[in-house]
């Protein structure tokens, strides 16, 4: 099976600005990897370099072990789907899909068979004679996908392909691309700024910020064991509490909260050698891992209820602690709703919640 992709020490300068800083990333054949990050994080630049539309200033790009850095984009034989569909407006759907086959000198008969196959994969069999302008956004993006797949590329590159679609259609297309990925056992490199999308569709997520790789991992790892504050904050909501390092219990860190409570924390990047007791810490805890509790004696903390917002499947409450920090807590749909202005305590929902700390 083919389609393994490696970024090896890839850097990209625009003038003196370093847009991509020494990125390493190995993607297995048949793997679905999302490059996730805010705008300016370098995720699109990485994809453009893989496509051949940008050139790395340093480092190497490998597809199935062979360097493609010196191969021009039109000889790389990779599939690509752009955010704005990029269907050729003067060609019919069938002519659009035929385009990569025509430039490869595929016979007309073979073209017809492959176009039919590609249209079946994206479930738009009867649309061959339409012009792109006559299709909806979702349909156009399916055709763009068909055009990118029709020449059996080993790797499919997708640059925020669903960003222009409304939410319902976006979810539908996410399911669709997952189905196609499994059906064809494709390698997909998928760029997105939408964390929910990245978690939903990919085998692994690579989080980027300011041109640097922040974390690579499965959606579960990224969410539950974020490598740093940026990742924790970018993916889902998070509360930050300040604390001091109390000591180490094997590989687990014990943190001392301002009001005397000690909690066990997943240290992530911190090592005992680098973080002696007394080191100031920032501890990240997800709102759904906190709960309002009756007993304030042994709680993690307490605060005044500012507001509670009903969001359907859950309700979130914002509390202001004595130090002036705001803490968000998720309460279940059936739990009693605290009154704004009342003073309540909050605690960890379960003892073993994955939280993490970094040096403040």
């Amino acid at each position, binding site marked *: 099976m083919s389609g393994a992709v490696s970024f*090896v020490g890839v850097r990209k*300068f*625009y003038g003196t600005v370093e847009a991509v800083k020494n990125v390493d990333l190995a993607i297995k054949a048949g793997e679905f990897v999302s490059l996730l990050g805010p705008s300016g994080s370098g995720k699109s630049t990485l994809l453009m370099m893989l496509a051949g*539309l*940008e050139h790395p*200033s*340093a*480092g*190497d790009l490998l597809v199935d072990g062979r360097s493609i850095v010196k191969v*021009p984009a039109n000889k790389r034989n990779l599939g690509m789907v752009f955010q704005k569909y990029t269907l050729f407006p003067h060609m019919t759907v069938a002519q659009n899909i035929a385009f990569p086959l025509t430039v490869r000198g595929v016979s007309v008969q073979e073209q017809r068979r492959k176009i039919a196959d590609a249209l079946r994969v994206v479930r738009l069999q009867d649309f061959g004679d339409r012009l792109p302008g006559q299709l909806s956004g979702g349909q156009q993006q399916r055709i763009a996908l068909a055009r990118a797949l029709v020449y059996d590329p080993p790797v499919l590159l997708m640059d925020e392909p669903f960003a222009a679609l409304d939410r319902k259609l976006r979810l539908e297309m996410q399911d669709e691309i997952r189905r196609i990925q499994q059906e064809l056992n494709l390698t997909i490199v998928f760029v997105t700024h939408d964390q929910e999308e990245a978690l939903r569709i990919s085998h692994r997520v690579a989080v980027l910020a300011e041109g640097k790789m922040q974390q690579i991992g499965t959606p579960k790892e990224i969410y539950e064991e974020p490598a740093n504050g940026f990742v924790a904050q970018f993916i889902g909501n998070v509360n930050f509490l300040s604390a001091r390092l109390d000591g180490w219990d094997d590989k687990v860190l014990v943190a001392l909260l301002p009001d005397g409570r000690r909690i066990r924390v997943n240290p992530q990047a911190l090592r005992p050698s680098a973080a002696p007791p007394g080191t100031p810490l920032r501890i990240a805890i997800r709102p759904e891992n906190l709960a309002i509790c009756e007993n304030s004696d042994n709680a993690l903390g307490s605060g005044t209820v500012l507001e509670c917002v009903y969001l359907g499947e859950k309700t979130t409450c914002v509390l202001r602690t004595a130090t002036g920090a705001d803490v968000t807590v998720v309460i279940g749909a059936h739990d009693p709703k605290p009154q704004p202005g009342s003073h309540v305590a909050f605690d960890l929902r379960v003892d073993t919640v994955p939280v993490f700390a970094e040096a403040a």
Partner: protein
Amino acid sequence: MGTVHHRPDIAADSPRDLSRLVGLLLILPAVALIASLFVGPVITFLLRSFEGDASPFEQYTRLFGSDIYLRVLIRTLVISFLVTLTCLVLGYPVAWLLSRLRGWKLALLALFVLLPLWTSVLVRTYAWTVLLQRNGIVNSVLTGLGLTDAPLRLLYTDGAVVIAMAHVLLPFLILPLWGSLRQIPPEFRSAALVLGASEFSIFRRITAPLSAAGVGAGCLFVFLISLGFFVTPALVGGPRSMMIGTLVSQQALDALNWPFAAALSAVITAVVLMAMPFCRRLFLVTRAEG
């Protein structure tokens, strides 16, 4: 690992941008043609205005020292001004209506503006010679209405020149003005109506000030074209309503006085070129409004 590929930042084989070299090769033929066979000859011609036996400014001294030539110059300015004013008065309602219409009505009115713009200046000027001749339609209407007893002499007068030139140049005022009126958001009008303003006060307090840039651009455009206009004054105007364009042609063709023709030309060209940065600023303003 860590090999540095020395590639230019504008990727040479990315198809989104053409390289500077290709760009240069694409634009140079047009620039070379215009520079060598259009702008070049004009510059060479204008430089001849400094020929003279006594001093390099002999032609200019003659031009500005003579009543006859000064009068032509002033008449050119006055007629150009009157043409501009006529165009503004006639053109504003059309541009205003264009900015308020949609669909086929807009297309029809736009056609009424664009068809004259693209019809030969000669044909339109010829139409005026027919309309204004002694037994022409205008005179028939005037006598028919009993306004005059005998047909008036309309052709070869300053009035004929102003009317015919205004007719020829009207589209040049309407189009930029329409452009700036179109950029006024229609919500302004709705908001003013809700606030209780009448249509006239909306026009006076909102539309007119916001279209000032378009008015400026259109008027300047018409005025500058008028200065160097040749066909219409030559055919509709008489010997006593001579404009500078006709004088240039006379000096070059009949008097064979190229240096003096060049000096006259330099005066028109200087006025036009001096107004150019102003034109550009007006265009920028118009764009900024959008």
